[in-house]
């Protein structure tokens, strides 16, 4: 980009030379790839439920542009700006979640969406990045000696978010948030004995979820016992990968994808596998891994504890979500309602991820001194 001079001191110029351009590129590629896959995967799904074939494509492209704006805008904020925006986003998302429980329609047995002026929004998606930043803020302040009951505060917020999520119920999101929160605390210097204790507790909580939520038990049973119950979606996904082979059937030539009910959302990787082959899948995996490695290396060189904790939380959310989605698509773990970041169909997910990754970019921008 020779058009922007090194010594350009406009807001855009400063942003361009401080931001992690490789990560930005990676996200851009993911978004492009996602749009292409939704083109491939969603028409059969739309037709099956009686909609116009390009319904999902159109809706996704409508959200795509605002997402890019959000990503760029947030990435231009200062550290302090990110923190403030997150506090607002967190409060708003919590309020919407309460609203969801009160007036949200029940879809497939859960109340996760709330309709705001014609747009259905899943507030729990926005809680994830906002909570990671707020938790990092509290941990960092506490760790650096601020006179606040930091652990209690973050535990309280965590408990509130958990309660709201489990009431929907949305066990998948609850697990992701738990892992992020725990990792941030781990980074903030949780003693090893507590680390062990929390691992045990997490295990107990998973068993509790199995016993308490029938849909969770059902999915785990299906995963553990191949012959029992309905493994239709995962079976079709396996077939799709097999049908694709190394190089894929070519765009638009997938046949198994037609039979995957969630092809455009949770199982989009299977569509990539069938039409673009193993190479494309490995490319996606590598792309995610590269963004993660790149992010971690930036964080390692940062000297602001809040930035380290917050950026780790955001990066983990991104990586974990990708990992869980891919692992369940290829039957390495029970299916969880989790989108593949920037690729799967889903407006709330896309916007929330844009916000999260924008915040990550903002936090990992090169800063001079302790400037916030």
């Amino acid at each position, binding site marked *: 980009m020779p058009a922007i001079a090194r010594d350009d001191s406009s807001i855009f110029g400063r942003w361009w030379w401080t931001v992690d351009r490789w990560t930005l590129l990676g996200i851009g590629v993911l978004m492009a790839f996602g749009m292409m896959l939704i083109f491939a995967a969603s028409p059969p799904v739309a037709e099956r439920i009686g909609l116009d074939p390009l319904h999902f494509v159109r809706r996704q492209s409508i959200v795509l542009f605002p997402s890019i704006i959000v990503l760029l805008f947030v990435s231009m904020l200062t550290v302090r700006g990110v923190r403030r925006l997150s506090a607002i986003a967190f409060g708003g998302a919590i309020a919407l979640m309460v609203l969801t429980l009160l007036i949200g329609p029940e879809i497939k047995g859960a109340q996760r969406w709330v309709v705001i002026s014609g747009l259905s929004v899943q507030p729990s998606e926005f809680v994830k990045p906002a909570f990671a930043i707020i938790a990092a803020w509290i941990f960092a302040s506490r760790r650096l000696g601020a006179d606040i009951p930091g652990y209690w505060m973050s535990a309280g917020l965590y408990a509130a978010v958990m309660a709201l999520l489990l009431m929907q119920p949305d066990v998948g999101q609850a697990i992701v948030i738990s892992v992020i929160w725990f990792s941030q605390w781990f*980074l903030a210097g*949780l003693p090893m004995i507590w680390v062990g204790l929390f691992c045990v507790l997490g295990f107990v909580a998973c068993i509790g979820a199995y016993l308490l939520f029938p849909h969770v038990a059902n999915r785990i049973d299906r995963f553990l016992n191949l012959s029992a119950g309905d493994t239709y979606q995962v079976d079709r996904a396996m077939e799709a990968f097999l049908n694709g082979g190394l190089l894929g059937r070519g765009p638009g030539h997938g046949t198994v994808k037609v039979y995957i009910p969630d092809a455009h959302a949770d199982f989009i990787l299977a569509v990539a596998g069938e039409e673009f082959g193993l190479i494309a899948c490995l490319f996606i995996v590598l792309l*995610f*891994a590269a963004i993660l490695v790149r992010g*971690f290396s930036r964080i390692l060189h940062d*000297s602001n504890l809040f930035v380290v904790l917050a950026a780790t939380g955001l990066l983990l959310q991104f990586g974990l979500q990708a990992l869980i989605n891919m692992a369940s698509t290829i039957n390495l773990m029970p299916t969880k309602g989790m989108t593949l970041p920037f690729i799967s169909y889903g407006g709330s997910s896309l916007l929330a991820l844009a916000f999260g990754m924008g915040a990550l970019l903002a936090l990992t921008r090169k800063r001079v001194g302790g400037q916030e």
Partner: protein
Amino acid sequence: MLGRLRRGRRTIRPRRHIKPAFAQPCTPIRRDERNDVALETGRTRLLISGTVLILGFAVVGVRLVNIALFQDALEPRAAHAPHASELRMGRADIVDRNGEILATTLQTASLFANPRKILDADEAAHLLVSTLPGLREAEIAAKLKSNRGFVWLKRNLSPRQQWDIIKLGIPGVEFQSAETRVYPHGPLAAHVLGYVDIDNKGLAGVEKSFDTALRSNAAPIALTMDVRLQHLLRIELMAAMSTHRAIGATGIILDARHGDVMAMTSLPDFDPNAQGRASDNQRFNRATLGVYELGSTFKIFTTAMALDYGVVSMEDGYDATKPIRVSRFTIRDYHAKKRWLSVPEIFMYSSNIGSAKMARDVGGDAQREFLSQLGLLSPAPIELPEVGTPLTPKPWRPINTMTIGYGHGLAVSPLQLAVGVSSVVNGGILNRPTLIHRQPESEASNPPPRGDRVMSEETSQDLRRLMRLVVAKGTGGKAAAPGYLVGGKTGTAEKARRQGYNRRSLISSFVGAFPMTDPRYVVLVVLDEPQGTTKTHGFATGGWVAAPVVSRIVEHAAPLLGVGPTDEQAPAVLRQLDIELKPEGRRLASY
């Protein structure tokens, strides 16, 4: 607890050589140090977390390669076929004692359509109706034009009909296979078998009482019933019912020595294949659920009781010249002889006066004990859900003792009567009635429980002679079936109404057993409100309407049951069953 976490700093070894690149000189040193330590911990732990996450991605990559390139990953799934034991064949069959199928389960196809996929609803409806003439074209066309995704068109098609529809090739018309319970004999044993609902859940009869076993077992359940006897019993009862314009009828053939119910029918009945159309009256099982005052057939129990307790002997008798008046009741004889009657005469002429006096002499407590031993005061222990509870007088006054002596004031189910009578004629052993057939091979290792002795063999022998006497010379002459030595007792009871009894509506019955030299089967026939005909000279009593039915049943059933005819005049038979009607010298001695 959480406050103590600060001590976690112990585990951290600060490394001084890494200095924060842009430390502000104006920041206090303490804060800076703290930041250093915290950052160092954070970085170390970040490396651990990051490595774990990246390893996760590596696993995903390996797995992707494995799935996409090596089919082996799918092998265990594709090769899994259900084991033979996992295959469910649906609800188990019910068969009779000879293995004849009474109830079975068939796979049928049901036709449905997805109207959204139908191209031309009118044409499709026309084609369907031409194949399935039972359907109405307008109705089908309306269904196919609806905006729904699923409409039933016709349930339970035969394979032929299904094939014809497949051949039509109408898009959007599909089949769903289901299991249907089928009763090949129709209404033949409707009340014993019961029926199931649309989900094949047992709602009545054996289908209900053995619902769990029928669902889980593949092996059929064998009943003690014999379809041939059941058929015989049913057509004879239907004939009698129509001849005498009765409102209902019931009949039972019971194995007197084992308690096996060989046939049991209740009319009017219904077709369990279409149980939804049956009325409550048709569903009602008169043989086990209905309880009736069965009248003079109860004199069998009164006489057995009096003889067994030694209150009277076969030579004793009672004065039956005048009706008995007890408070506001009057006990009369139907076939009044107006003289002293011996015990055999009382039984033969069915004297109410004599039987009432006999019961009075035995006493209420002893009567209750005896009847309860015979199972007449508690619901019949049969394997059906539809079992009626006897109606007993409360309190049991002396007048009740007397009326129960001739079968009024105590209502029992016909099955209870048949079981009680079988214990009287089989040598005095009460066997629990059963519908479940014990296979002969399992009988050796698992003998049937022996019943309880309820009276002496001598009493039983006396009753055999008395019951034979009724058919040979008394009120039950029409029950005779030459060669089969039928014995029994008639019963004619007026049906109770709101106040007192109705002389016009009768319960007429005959309970018989054969052959009386060693009774093997008990046959009970009960007609509800029969009307007399010119052939019966207008009589509608048990001796006129029920006894002939028993005669015909015995005649036809005996060969099927392997009971051969005997010479009724053979000296050995006569000696065993002979009876002295009016013992000399006793008449004056008694009164």
